[in-house]
């Protein structure tokens, strides 16, 4: 190969093997210089490795992705939590609902666990503990997140006397963990009324009429 034809390759072939004397002398001198340096100055702190790590492009990208993910997930989760804070269940009414003279009724529903629609974080399944149709008490026996005190909760279902629920009818029960009143669920229901279906809206309209306001469980004529 003639050098002028391919200068680049020729220059790449340049190589010098260091002499043993030079190698040993330089190695000895640099190790000595390093020892003197480390004796006079403190070693670089371990925290510098994080500076090295954080300066890489991959780490910067991951950090940005993590920040963006946090800012994207937190508001979404916050919104869903607010929207799902309404606590109500739905299920089939096996025996219909007992009507009373009042326009507010208590109901016991044999809730099929698979049919239960959980929109709140509080109650997963309710079960019937009362044998008679006149006692309308249900117990929360599984509580998610432990935010509701593990106690008996009375379920109050507002219905109109002219439209009693029939067996097999779809019933939606709004549960209030506070003082057995529907009053506390009103704002929650109103806040999530955009997502309500027709049956939910029906009950919501009943509630909005204000019939429940003075109502407390048990109803006067239930026993």
């Amino acid at each position, binding site marked *: 190969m*003639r050098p*002028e034809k391919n200068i680049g390759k020729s*220059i790449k072939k340049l*190589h*010098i093997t260091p002499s043993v004397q030079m190698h040993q*002398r*330089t*190695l000895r001198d640099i190790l000595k210089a390093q020892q003197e340096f480390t004796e006079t100055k403190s070693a670089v702190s371990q925290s510098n490795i994080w500076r090295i790590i954080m300066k890489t492009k991959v780490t910067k990208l991951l950090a940005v992705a993590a920040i963006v993910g946090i800012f994207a997930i937190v508001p979404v989760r916050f919104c869903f939590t607010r929207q799902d804070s309404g606590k109500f269940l739905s299920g089939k009414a096996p025996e219909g609902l007992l009507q009373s003279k009042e326009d507010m009724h208590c109901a016991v529903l044999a809730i099929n666990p698979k049919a239960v629609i959980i929109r709140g974080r509080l109650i997963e399944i309710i079960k019937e503990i009362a044998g008679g149709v006149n006692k309308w008490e249900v117990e929360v026996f599984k509580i998610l997140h432990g935010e509701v005190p593990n106690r008996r909760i009375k379920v109050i279902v507002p219905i109109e006397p002219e439209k009693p629920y029939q067996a097999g009818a779809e019933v939606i029960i709004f549960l209030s963990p506070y003082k057995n009143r529907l009053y506390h669920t009103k704002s929650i229901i109103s806040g999530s009324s955009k997502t309500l279906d027709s049956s939910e809206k029906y009950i919501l309209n009943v509630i909005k009429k204000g019939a429940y306001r003075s109502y407390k469980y048990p109803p006067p004529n239930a026993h």
Partner: protein
Amino acid sequence: MVEDKILMWRFKCGSRDALARIYEKYEAYLLTLAAALLGDVNTAEDVVHDFFVSFAQSADKVRLNGNLKGYLATCVANRARDQIRARQQQPIGLEQAQNSKKPDVCAMFGEELSLLNLSLRQLPYEQREVLILHFYSGMKFKTIASAQDVSINTVQSRYRYGLDKLRTLLKRELKK
């Protein structure tokens, strides 16, 4: 690359083994580079020696942005440039001038490359440095420009003129 980063980290933490490994890994490469730039093995050895001693004393100052090999090559090239400038400022004697083109000095890279080495030594230093850093060290023009503190156009001009002149010199040497 990864090995170099680990070596540098250990070196900055004060590891003697890491420093020795860096030296042994790049000793021949840097010596060749310095010799090609300076045209003198003895001076090249001194340059490499001085650089590594300085390198060992500046563990906390080293800020490695690119690869270690390029960093070391740039440092040695800078030192070689300083050496050339210092040599140019010193008065040169007649005997020294006559010995500057001795065959044994020119043949330090072997018989095959002696012509190339002779021709390289006749180039202006700036052009020679660009050619060697580009071809031997594999540096890009942008990196060379940054190391020499000149514009990239200047580096490209030096490369082009240097290459043309080197071709001419090689042809002339071959005709002899």
